């Protein structure tokens, strides 16, 4: 393992900053913290962290602006920290290039899981191009990308073309939330209209095929008003 991964935390509330710093340090990461957007941008440029944790409500510049400026030159994973009720703000942040978000208030377990997921995906981007991907496993569900095969407890699941594409897209970014607009564009192309009903219907069909009870899903989770997240590959 390389030296400790570095996490840059941009957050103006001192109490929250100290609690996140403590947590992250205790899990063996290096932590750099900034209390304003400008400071965060400087630190990001000079220290090249492996993950950025960004609070959207900053005193000096808008959090969305921070995302845009970082994205001008760096693909570093950005996790947005935001309040629950602002689902539009979150979706906007994701569409502007943030990788994931975490809702205030959050537990340490959730925070560390998000950071690990982001680090893993960050490596994939820099790593080799996907030739043959290892299969996705979660509980009884397996997706074998080479054979185009989805199985549940060993039994083959019959999916339509679109459903398979959707499931592949979600599972390749497992653990990460994908916004409606991102999924729509990836599956139906850039000229699809804004109505995401077709996506919801397809997701409902997938749910009926891979979940025991569509109301208590185990594999694909809905983030209302934002998009979908697939359980992390085991």
């Amino acid at each position, binding site marked *: 393992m390389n030296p400790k991964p570095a996490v840059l935390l941009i957050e103006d509330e001192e109490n929250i900053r100290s609690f996140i710093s403590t947590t992250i340090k205790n899990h063996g990461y290096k932590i750099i913290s900034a209390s304003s957007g400008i400071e965060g941008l400087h630190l990001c440029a000079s220290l090249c962290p492996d993950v950025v944790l960004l609070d959207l409500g900053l005193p000096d510049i808008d959090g969305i602006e921070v995302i845009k400026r970082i994205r001008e030159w760096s693909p570093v994973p950005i996790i947005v920290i935001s309040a629950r009720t602002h689902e539009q703000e979150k979706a906007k942040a994701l569409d502007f290039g943030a990788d994931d978000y975490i809702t205030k208030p959050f537990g340490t377990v959730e925070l560390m899981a998000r950071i690990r997921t982001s680090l893993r995906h960050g490596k994939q981007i820099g790593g080799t191009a996907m030739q043959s991907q290892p299969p996705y496993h979660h509980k009884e569900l397996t997706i074998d990308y080479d054979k185009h095969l989805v199985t549940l407890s060993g039994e083959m699941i019959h999916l339509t073309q679109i459903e398979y594409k959707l499931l592949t897209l979600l599972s390749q970014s497992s653990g990460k939330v994908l916004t409606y607009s991102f999924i729509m564009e990836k599956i139906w192309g850039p000229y699809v209209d804004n109505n995401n009903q077709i996506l919801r*219907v397809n*997701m409902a069909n997938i749910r009926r095929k891979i979940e025991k009870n569509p*109301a208590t899903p185990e594999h694909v989770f809905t983030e209302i008003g934002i998009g979908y997240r697939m359980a992390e590959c085991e």
Partner: protein
Amino acid sequence: MKNCFITLFFFGIATLIAFWFFHNVPENPANIALVYITALVLVARFTTGYFFGIIGSLIGVVCVNFLFTYPYFALNFSLTNYPVTFLFMLIISITISAMTTQIKTQGKVLLEREKLLMEAEKEKMRANLLRSISHDLRTPLTGIIGNTSAYIDNKDKLSDEEKLDIVTHINEDSNWLLNMVENLLSVTRIDERSMKIAKSEESVEEVVAEAFSRLQKRLPHAQISVKVPEDFLMIPMDAMLIEQVIINLLENAVVHANSKKPIEFTVTENANQVTFQVKDYGIGIAPERLSTIFDGTPYTSEQVSDMHKGIGIGLSICKTIIVAHSGTIHATNHENGCIFTFTLPKEGK
């Protein structure tokens, strides 16, 4: 302007009818006078103030004189009973106008009184809500303050186990507070004046699933079985708010009902609406509270003690949210517990 039109309209009609009588039943001229009197009564009734009534009686007299008494199409004020006719018509019109005006004022007064009553009702609801909020917020805050000061005062004497216990309690209380604040925040999504919300088509099973998973994060040991319709279902709603309602009802059932079997949460649909039902197998609700349970009424003093951290606000917020969705919500008891049911219409208004 409107009054002018009404006057002309009624007298026009009256003149037409009068002409008909004049040509077909010429032997009884009293009819013509009666027709004009009727027109006068109607004018006095449907115009505001006395002015048009008086004008009307003038018109009536002139018309009868001009059109229907010899010499025709000429005014002849020398006829004997003429001033008497005019006087009687005047009396009729003034009486009717006075009555009309009175009725109208009374109507206005009634409307105003109703408005005042509504305002008072709203004010009362707000006061009730504030009272139960303050009560509900004080309970966990007291716990947090008590626990933290116990820790600060005795930090050298406490064992690790005791310390953990204290912090666990603080954690529980603050989670509860957060839940409360989220409830209150959700209400701010409803426009206060029009009680309207921003609705969009949402998938019922996704909303149910998210509500369920959020509740499970907070209460991992909750035993709940969830059932949604086999068919994919989308209805107009504010998903955040409906999620809040589901969480409140489920949490209520988990925390307060002492259910002996898993709580059942079922969603069913019919042609017009979708029904959400939370059924528990617990202690049930006192019958006298059933009708007021959603009103956020403050508890009487002896109820406070056994009502662990009130369920008042949560339920009154549920009601506010469902009413804003043009749905219904109610609670009933069954043999072994109680059922909370709410419905949402399929077609948004």
